[in-house]
C-alpha cells in the first residue's frame, strides 16, 4: 500500500486513488491533423522507464482532483511533480 501525497489532502493510502498513467501526454490539439501512426502513438504508446517517472494520479475517494508526481519505478519513492512542462498547446 503506497502512501500517496495528494497536493490538496496530504498523505493518503493508495487505495483512495486511481492511477492515471504517464503524465504530460497531451490530447492532440487537432487529432484529425495526425496521420494514423501518430494517432496510434498517442493512443497506445507510453514510456515505461526503470527509475524516475512523471505520472498522474486522481484522488477518487477524496477530493477527486488530478495531479502529477514523480515516482521512482524501482523503489516507489515519490516526490512532487516537477514544474509544468507545457508552455502552450
Amino acid at each position, binding site marked *: *500500500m503506497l*502512501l500517496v501525497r495528494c497536493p490538496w489532502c496530504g498523505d493518503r493510502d493508495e487505495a483512495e486513488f486511481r492511477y*492515471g498513467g504517464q503524465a504530460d501526454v497531451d*490530447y492532440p490539439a487537432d487529432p*484529425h491533423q495526425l496521420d*494514423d501512426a501518430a494517432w496510434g502513438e498517442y493512443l497506445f504508446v507510453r514510456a515505461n522507464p526503470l527509475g524516475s517517472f512523471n505520472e498522474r494520479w*486522481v484522488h477518487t475517494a477524496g477530493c477527486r*482532483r*488530478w495531479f502529477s508526481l514523480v515516482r521512482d519505478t524501482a523503489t*516507489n519513492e515519490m516526490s512532487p511533480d516537477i514544474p509544468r512542462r507545457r508552455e502552450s498547446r
Partner: protein
Amino acid sequence: MMSSSNPNRLNASVRPGRIDRTRTIHATVDGRAVPGRPGDTLASAMLAGGDIEVGPSIQRGRPRGVFSADCTEPNALVQRLDGDCPEPMLPATEIELQDGLRVETLSGVGWLSEQRDTAGYDKKFVHSDVVVVGAGPAGIAASLAAARGGARVMLVDQHRELGGMLLDGQAHIAGHPATEWIGRAARELAENEQVRVLTRATALGCYDHNYLLIAERRADHPDAPPSPTIRQRLWHVRAKQVVLATGAHERPLVFADNDRPGVMLASAVRSYLNRHAVLPGREAVVFTTSDSAYSTALDLLGTGARVPAIVDTRPEPPTRLVEQVRAAGAHVVTSAAVVATGGEHRVSGVRVRGIDGNGSLTEWSAEFPCDLLAVCGGWNPAVQLFAQSGGAVRWDPVVAGFVPSGAGGRSARVVGAARGTYDLAGCLAQGFASGAEAATLSGFRTAPPPVPQVDGDRQASRPRPVWLVPDESRSPEECTEHFVDQQRDATVADIHHALGTGMRSVQHVKRYTTISTGLEQGKSSGVNAVGVLADALSAGSPGEVGTTTFRPPYTPVPLALFAGRTTGRLYDPVRTTPMHRQHVEAGAVFEDVGQWKRPRYYPRGNEDMHAAVLRECSAARTGVAVQDVSTLGRIEIVGSDAPEFLDRIYTNGFAKLAVGKARYGMMCGADGMVLDDGVSMRLAEDRYLMSTTTGGAAKVLDWLEEWLQTEWPELDVYCTSVTEQWAAVAVVGPDSRTVVGRLAPDLDVSAESFGFMRFHETVLVGGIPARISRVSFSGELAFEVNVARWYGQALWEATMTAGSDLDITPYGTEAMHVLRAEKGFVIVGQDTDGTVTPVDLGMDWAVSKHKDFIGKRSLSRPDLVRQDRVQLVGLLPTDTTTLLPEGAHLVEPDVSRRPPVPMAGHVTSSYHSAALERTFALGLISGGRQRIGEVLCAPVGGRDVEVEITSPVFYDPEGARRDGPEQG
C-alpha cells in the same frame, strides 16, 4: 525431583522457567492427555512428558522429532481439532498449551475442513510514529528510546511476553538477571500512553512506505477470555519509521541421518531448559560451528545433564569457552563433525570424524552415546521483513549469514541479531540508537540512553560453517539421508539431482527440490540449500548463489483473517432504492447490478423465472408495466460551456438540443470504443441532466472529471453526481398514458402535447413534485417519472394505485432485458466489451459527421474500418425453442472442427420472447450485416445449433408503437 507425569520437568530450584507451576493444564495429542503448565508450548509440554517423537515424515515415513522451539519447526506439525474450525499445519512449538486443546500429529501435510469457520476475525487500521518489530533486547531498547522521546510507539512481538532470546538464556543486565530489566522495560512501556505493546502478534509483511500487516492472536492461549469475540485481529499499520529487531534463526547442520528424533537445534535445547524448565535429554552431544552452542552445553551441564562431547568444526574454538565447558565436565572435540547417528525412534549415539580445512573427513573417529544431539550450524539473521520491503541482502563472511546490505534508500532500519549483531551489548546499543533516531526523524528529537553493563553475553568469535558434512562412504550425489528440508523430505541428493538436470539458479533448485516451500518457508532450510549449492558449484561464497525471494506472510495465517468481517452479508456494501421494501413485499427475486440490489423478476404463485418474465413482458407490450429505475446513474452538468463539453464527450450533438428535450447519447474512449450510454435532458441553457448505466455511473463521472481537469480546464463546467437525489419509475405499455394521466392530473399526456423525448415538470397526486419524460427502452409508449428520493415509496404506491384496474405489472431487469433486446437496443457491457465501436453496433445514426468528439479520430483508423469487424446482428435458432447460451461461439457450418476452429462471432444476449413466441438472440458476427439470412452453427453441449443471422430489430421495426395506441 521430577514428577512422574512430567519426567523431564526441571525442579523450580534448578530452573524456575517462565511457567506457572501452581496450575496443571491438559491438552490431548492423538487422543492421549498431555499435561503441562501455563507458559508451556504444546512442544515443551510433550518434551516435559518425555515425548520427542512426532508424526513420521511426509514422503519416506521416517521417524521425526521435535526439532526447534520456534516458527522454523519442520516436524512437530499438528492439526487442531478443537475450536471453531479444524486448523491445519500448526507448529507445536508455537501453540500455547491450554486446557481443552486437542490436536493430531501430522506427516508434513494437514487437511482442510469443510466446516465453516465461525470464529471472529477483524481488522484495525492505525498510524504510528515508530513501529518496532521484535521485543528481544534490541527491540525493547529501541522502543524505550523512541518512547522516551515522546513518539507514538508500537512494539510487536510474536510471543506472549517480551524478552525474545533473553528468555532463553541467563544474561545479566546492569548487575541483575535480564528478566528484571525486561520487567522494568515492560512496565515503563505499559505506563506510557503513547506506547502500544502487541504481544502474540506477528508482523506478516512490511511493505512500501512503512506499511505493515500484523496478525494478533487474541484467543487460543491461557490468558484469553473463555469465549473471545475476536480470535485474531489483522492490524494495518502506517508508520513514520520502522525498526526491525526480528532476531535470527539457528541453522541446522547437514550430515547423514540428521533427521533422527533427538536431533534438535542447540538454541531450542537452551530455550526448553531456561524458558520452560524442560530437559529434553539426559545425555547430550553438542555439534556446532560457532560459539553459541557452548552456552547450551553449559546450561545442560548446569542442570545435571551429561555432555559426552562438544563437537566443533573449528580447529581452535575460543580457549575461554573450551576451558569453561571442560571445567563443567564436558569434552571438546575440535576440527570434527558428526557423520552418523544411531538409534531408531530416538538417537542413541553419534559417530564423529575429524574434518580438515577443506571440509574432507580425516581418519580420526570416535563414537559417543547420547539421547540428544544439539546442533548449531550458525545463524540466519531474520531479514524476511527487511527484504520484503525492498531491502537488499549481502553475504557477510564474518557472521556467516545474509545480512541487510548497508544502503538501499529504505527507511526500515534493522538492528541486533537481524543484522548479524549477536552480542547483547551491541544489540542494546543498536536498539537505543535506532529508537532515538527513529523518534527524531518522526519529529521527536531525542538522544539514545546510555547502554547498561551486561554479562552472560553470547560469544562472538568467527564461526566455521560446514554446509555439507561428507558421508563416510558415499558421494554428495548419493547423500539421500542428508536432509536439507525435513518437512519436504528433501536431501543433498535432491539438490545434486537438480544440478544434474542443468539447473543452476537457487530459484529453480528450490522449486525442483521443494526445499524451503514448506511451513518454515526457508527460515531454517534456505541458507543450507544455498550453501550446499555453493559448494557443488564451487562458488566462492553463498553470496554468489544468492537467496530466493522473501515474500509475505512471514508465518502462515488463516485466510479468514484477511477476510475479517467482510464475509456474507458484509462482503460488499449493498445499495437499495427507496422502494426496496415494496419490492421485497411484492416477492421480488433480486440480482446484483454493481452494488445495487435490483428486482430481477416478480414471481406470482409458483412461477419460475421463465414464466414470470414472459408474463411481465406481455404486460409491457399489451397493457401496462412498471419498473423501478432509480438505480440509473445521474450526473448534473452545469456551466456556460456545458453544451460544448457534452458535444465533445458524446458521439452525437447536444449543444443544439432544445431546453425541455432529451436525447440518447453514446460516449466512446479516445480509442473509439463504446464506453457508456444514456439519455440526457437539457434542463436549461447551461444545465443538463445526464443519465448513465447503473453500473457505469462512477466511471463516467471520473471520465468527465478527467477531461475537465486535465485537458480542458478552460471550460466552465461542473459535474455533480445526483444519482442518490432521485427516485424514478418507468411506466411502460399501451396503457401507460392512462396511468400517467391519472398520476399527473395537471399534465396533458396526449401524444400531441407530450412528444417523444420531451420532459415536463408537474405535481403528482398527493402533491409530489415530479419531472416526467417520454423515453422508452422497450419500443413501447413509456414514461419515466422522477421524484425527489424521499418520495420514492409514495411514487411507487401512487403508480400501483393509478394502474390497479389495468393490472399494472411490476417488472424486473430480466423482462427489461428481453424487451430492449426485441428492439435491438444494446446494453453497454453486455453487447459490448470494450472492443466494439458505435459503428460495429450499427449505431452510425448516433455518430456525428459534423463535429469532433472523443474517439472520432479513431473511427477512421484502418483497423476500425475493416469490413470483417464484428457487427451486431440478430440470431434466430432454427428450432424456435432452443435457447442459445450467452457467450456461445458461432462457427461456419462446414468448417473443420480440428482446433484452432475459426470463430465467426459470439452470442451476447439470448432470451425467450413472449411477443415473438420463440427464442432469439443478439450477437457480434464478423461482417454480420452483409450476412443477413445466412446460417451459422453454435456448437453447444456436444451438438450443433443452427442459427440464422437476422436484423437485430425483431419487434416493431417501424417504431409504430412508440407513441402508443390512437388517442382514446
